[in-house]
């Protein structure tokens, strides 16, 4: 069992949780993920690591309560325990001494992006960060990201805060030169960012959270086409060169279980669960 040591709401329906897992904390690096399972009927879900506390022996992750498991997790509190936590899995994000780095984070992903931003600054990079969300309610870690960044922008799809959408980045890229870029967020946002950076040949690394079961290379559920070749996000990634990713295919694969997810939420939330005779 792995105890939830702390939990706080960082935006409506978005929570930052810290889990006691000393061995995992010691090995975690920015860009890696953990897989957790809440109870013995639970599914395994990947969450990108948002930081560690080596003194407390904890691993942090941000959770947007939208699916069956994340909603259940959102209802748990500090002091409760989850059944399984495995990690760190996947490869760390490449943290080089690049020079000027553009970071784009979407919603809940701003938490793991902050972990990446800290590491980039420690390496001596200059960082310009965009915190993005669908609405202003989806923005998290604005203060932290602003503090760690040399430049900071906010953008929302509906324009409720900061720039409307990400197209302002085109102007930024016209006037400023960047040496590297990292985007973490929903797949559609990642695709948008790579389309914006492509004309400027700005290398853009994207962290892919494709559907996973084991997270160790066994199932192949997370497969994604990169530069015409099938890769496993869990083993070969999760960070890939965004200009090489087949986003159309990935978006379709992300939707594989939508009907089942809808059915499960209906059964559990509206009908009060499964009854077996």
């Amino acid at each position: 069992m792995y105890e939830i040591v702390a939990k706080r709401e960082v935006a409506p329906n978005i929570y930052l949780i810290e889990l006691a897992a000393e061995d995992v904390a010691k090995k975690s690096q920015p860009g890696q993920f953990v897989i957790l399972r809440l109870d013995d009927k639970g599914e395994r879900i990947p969450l990108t690591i948002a930081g560690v506390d080596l003194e407390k022996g904890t691993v942090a992750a941000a959770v947007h309560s939208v699916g069956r498991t994340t909603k259940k997790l959102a209802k748990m509190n500090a002091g409760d325990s989850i059944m399984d936590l495995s990690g760190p899995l996947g490869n760390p994000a490449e943290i080089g001494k690049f020079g000027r780095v553009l970071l784009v984070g979407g919603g809940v992903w701003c938490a793991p992006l902050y972990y990446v931003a800290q590491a980039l600054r420690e390496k001596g990079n200059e960082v310009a960060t965009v915190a993005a969300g669908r609405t202003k309610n989806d923005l998290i870690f604005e203060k932290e990201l602003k503090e760690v960044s040399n430049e900071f922008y906010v953008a929302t799809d509906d324009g409720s805060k900061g720039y409307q959408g990400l197209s302002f980045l085109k102007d930024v890229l016209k006037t400023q030169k960047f040496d590297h870029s990292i985007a973490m967020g929903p797949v559609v946002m990642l695709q948008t960012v790579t389309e914006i950076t492509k004309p400027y040949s700005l290398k853009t690394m994207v962290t892919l959270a494709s559907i996973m079961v084991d997270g160790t290379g066994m199932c192949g559920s997370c497969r994604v086409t990169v530069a015409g070749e099938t890769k496993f996000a869990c083993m070969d990634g999760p960070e890939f060169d965004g200009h090489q990713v087949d986003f159309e295919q990935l978006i379709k694969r992300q939707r594989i279980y939508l009907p089942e997810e809808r059915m499960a939420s209906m059964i559990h939330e509206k009908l009060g669960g499964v009854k077996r005779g």
Partner: protein
Amino acid sequence: MDKEQRKHEVPMAKQDVLERIHNFYEVALGYTEEQAVAEAERCLQCPKPSCIQGCPVEIDIPAFIKEIKDGNFLAASAKLKEKNSLPAICGRVCPQENQCQKFCVLGKMGDPISIGRLERFASDYEQLKGVTVPPKQESSVKGRVAIVGSGPAGLTAAADLAKLGYEVVMFESLHSTGGVLMYGIPEFRMPKKIVQAEVDYIKKLGVEVKTNYTIGKIFTINELFASGFDAIFVGSGAGLPRFMRIPGENFGGVYSANEFLIRVNLMKAYLFPEYDTPIRIGKKVAVIGGGNVAMDSARSALRLGAEEVYIVYRRSKQELPARAEEAENAEEEGIIFRFLTNPVKFLGDESGWVKEIECIKMELGEPDASGRRRPLPIEGSEFIMDVDTAVIAIGQTPNPLIQRTTEGLETTKWGTIVVQEETGETTKKGVYAGGDVVSGAATVISAMGAGKRAARSIHKYLMSKNGA
């Protein structure tokens, strides 16, 4: 017993085919006490038994059969456990027809003794009555051994080393122990309750189990040594799925057999939405491949409600690598075999879901390196199969995590770890390996045999290291 009786095995009851295709309960029902005794009575108790040479873990077969014949079922189980820590598993999934039973002299004039069924009977009897654990022996041996992977190889090595008195810690990457016995082999062939009972027995021998530890990630092999382990056994299996590398393979509805079986067995997707992990099947399912994993996938798909399930295999029936019993069960349940057929590409609908497979007919040419006749495509014979789901069951390769993170550990071009066959010694001092990570995907029992040999050589290594 007259000669005629001696010739024929006592059959084992199976769940009725019309019922079993709708549930995940075990198909083979096992012997009753009377049936077990009757079958045991057929044994000739050869003074120089040849069956034992067919057993990779060297069970004293006539001795345990004699105990069953005399009605001493618990004594029979104890006899099995002297050599085999997982008899309830072996009794179910060993290919006995190619091992012990192949050497039984009764096989020359009729049916060989059903050694596997008797093994299963004795160990199930013990599980029912309550498992007895041998008292911990005062031992002079000292040492800590790490076992990487809790599948058949790891469980066997762990049990043997714990019995010798070593401190044993077993690391498992997934959330439950048993490896392929849990994630791969379906409930209807290998009930998970039975696996967990065997794992519990091994824990009672004193083995500490750490689940959710992916070695190669959370600790490297060198870090395990640094944390105080004196020897390490790697039994990390062949967990990486092989794909066909043909167009359309990434459409929704195209599963690796690993994903399909992990969802069904480990995550219990057949009980969705009571359990949270989903799976989608549709009406027509094609499973590509002809091994046990293909049979397991096809039979699972049927139980999940598919209307038509096909096995698509590029060679003919004679070359099927699956156990004959499994292929027969599949056929009996209504699985449709498409022999001499090979997929060329998958075609999908607009949403990215697979809807058709383009296949080509094959013919058999000259024997290839494996000694089997090589399948060759017949030009112009392409045709289309309508499907909702495709499962690719053409084999697995070892997970490279440990190999990639361990300096000095030699591997082959297939990614398997190089060892001395008899001892399981790798090219790195103190590191031993066995099972599928060495052999490539093979059987449960051959992995157990490798675990046993490695445990023996780890013992020898630690004795000499300690100057005994």
